[in-house]
């Protein structure tokens, strides 16, 4: 099993119990009195049969609080995601933190900073790099690249999942569009691994039929589902963080209820993808500190609900891999981690969801390692507290350098970044004054030359190709 990083520090808590209760009670109020719009007669009938109040004319379902609270309780507090190599199997929930990546529509040229669609080869290499990076645990939907040269938009998700299966033994959660989950589920089953699906609400307070169908198909296949809600504060939710938490919570709980009424005990995670709206252009603002506040509160509420959580850190407003990109993503990733979120979507994304680059993912592996080390906290016991050693060594000229204790501890207490510039000034001059991007480029080259992902067995490879052929035919005919 992939242990990820076990948080051994108290999670950051910014809300009082009364404040959590206020968010929860107002969420119940919205679910009971305003309700959620479900654009599907099948789903409306289903809710009617399950004692919810359904307005068929306006496609609104109103949920009695007892149903909401009962469905929250039915969610498992953690669940396993089986990988095709058991060493990469995950248990999502509790105090474990895993790292994931962020999608980018296109790649970017590191000299001109111009964007363009990635090639199939670049997409494959980006996957291989993520397979090699040791602090990366689970692929995010629509990643690494969403648009790849020579692949039709309808085939983007099936082809993307196939590339991940073929070039990595790490698990994925996958997106949905035009019922492509049918092919994703088949591919996961053919390779004897779990895949996480999505049920995406559309803010405010709406689920369209495709989103419901996707959620139900994954649950029926006994796969977990991530109910991920992208919200723009001031646009699709109130501009206030508290108000946005209430509308976001009502939206995602609509999906949680659908899942638990369909299949009590369904494996559910919830993802907070909330961003403020830029009030000049209407575009989302990435890398904004408001998002981190929203996520910290969300993490605290969902720890109470005992439902596993995801959140995004790797989308910044910088168009380059630069200082702003570094501070925005590192702050977000650290705050998400100490808030106790279970899956931290960090790797590879540069600007918003527009750009991905493997160099960024290599730099992020260091950020993840540093953060992971931090949340693992301080081990305090007889040996680590070392008071006998301190007493024995005494004041100057005493030194700890030549002790077994130092040899035992210095490696495990520190995290050693692989791409960061960690050398002394004279060494740096001698080595050609390389910065972290140059060092990450060298690591990328070395990974591509040396890392060979575990191949699929022949029969599974054949099966994946058959499923892709079927999917291509399906989308050509519609």
């Amino acid at each position, binding site marked *: 099993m992939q242990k990820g990083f076990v948080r051994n520090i108290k999670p950051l808590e910014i809300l009082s119990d009364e404040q959590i209760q206020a968010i929860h009670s107002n969420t119940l109020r919205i679910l009971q009195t305003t309700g959620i719009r479900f654009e599907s007669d099948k789903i409306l009938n289903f809710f009617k049969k399950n004692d919810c109040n359904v307005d068929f004319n306006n496609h609104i379902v109103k949920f009695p609080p007892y149903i909401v609270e009962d469905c929250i309780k039915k969610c498992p507090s953690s669940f396993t995601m089986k990988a095709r190599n058991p060493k990469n199997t995950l248990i999502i929930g509790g105090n474990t933190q895993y790292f994931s990546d962020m999608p980018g*529509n296109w790649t970017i040229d590191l000299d001109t900073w111009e964007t363009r669609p990635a090639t199939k080869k670049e997409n494959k290499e980006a996957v291989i790099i993520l397979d090699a990076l040791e602090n990366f645990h689970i692929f995010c939907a629509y990643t690494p690249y*969403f*648009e790849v040269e020579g692949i039709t*938009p*309808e085939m*983007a998700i099936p082809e993307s999942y196939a590339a991940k299966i073929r070039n990595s033994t790490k698990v994925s959660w996958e997106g949905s*569009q*035009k019922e492509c989950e049918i092919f994703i589920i088949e591919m996961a089953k053919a390779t004897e691994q779990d895949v996480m699906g999505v049920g995406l609400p*559309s803010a405010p307070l709406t689920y*369209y039929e495709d989103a419901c169908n996707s959620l139900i198909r994954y649950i029926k296949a006994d796969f977990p589902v991530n109910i991920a809600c992208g919200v*723009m504060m*001031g*646009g*699709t939710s109130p*501009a206030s963080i508290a108000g946005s938490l209430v509308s976001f919570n009502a939206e995602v709980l609509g999906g949680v209820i659908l899942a638990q009424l369909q299949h009590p005990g369904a494996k559910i995670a919830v993802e907070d993808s909330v961003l403020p*709206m830029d*009030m*000049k*252009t*209407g*575009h989302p603002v990435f890398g904004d500190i408001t998002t981190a506040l929203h996520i910290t509160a969300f993490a605290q509420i969902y720890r109470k609900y005992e439902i596993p959580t995801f959140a995004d850190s790797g989308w910044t407003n910088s168009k380059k891999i630069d200082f702003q990109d570094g501070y925005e993503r590192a702050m977000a990733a650290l705050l998400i981690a100490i808030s106790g979120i279970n899956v931290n979507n960090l790797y590879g994304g540069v600007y918003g969801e527009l750009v991905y680059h493997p160099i960024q993912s290599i730099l992020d592996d260091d950020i993840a390692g540093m953060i992971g080390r931090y949340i693992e906290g301080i081990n305090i016991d007889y040996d680590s507290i070392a008071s006998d050693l301190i007493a024995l060594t005494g004041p100057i000229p005493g030194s700890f350098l030549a002790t077994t204790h130092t040899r035992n501890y210095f490696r495990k207490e520190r995290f050693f970044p692989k791409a960061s510039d960690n050398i002394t000034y004279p060494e740096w001059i001698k080595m050609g004054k390389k910065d972290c991007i140059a060092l990450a480029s060298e690591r990328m080259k070395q990974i591509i030359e040396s890392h060979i992902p575990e191949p699929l067995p022949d029969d599974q490879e054949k099966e994946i190709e058959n499923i892709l052929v079927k999917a291509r035919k399906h989308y050509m005919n519609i």
Partner: protein
Amino acid sequence: MVSSGADPLLAASTLTDAIRQVGDAFGEGDLFLPDLVCASEVLKKAFPIINEAIEKNGKKQTSLAKIVIGTVFGDIHSIGKGMVATLLYAAGFKVIDLGVNVKSEDFLKAIKDENAEVLAMSALLTTTAMEQKKVIDGLKEVGIRDRIKIIVGGSPITQEFADTIGADGYGATAPEGVKVVKRLLGLGG
């Protein structure tokens, strides 16, 4: 005011001046989208009453041009499209908003019925972006492509894409969309 006897033409010009000032302040960076949208909402509520009063007096209120707008078939994203519609309205255009998930034939019908001069289409998904081309091709088939200006927008849309599918203009943001429409119609912008 109008119902208590105020001159409807004066009310219309006062409101138009006010929205122009709001628009200018937005351009200067002193006001923001919520200010602009709220001001437009006031106009939306006031103008039907004012227009009715103007028509009662036997006169006619004019608009800059008629614009049909909507999010293409298969796509239910409404915020960006709604913002462009509101800003176009505030700029003095008559806007016929067809909503979201609009089929190609519904765009065509609205353009013909309303005799629109501009078509504005939004798509937020890579899978629905090509629907914009379908609508443009449909207009070509029925022979009315050349009498209408077409602008496109949405997250996956770029100037290059707009050129490829044969649109006349592209705006990356809602305010830019309004500028593009004005430019295409020779109204400045």
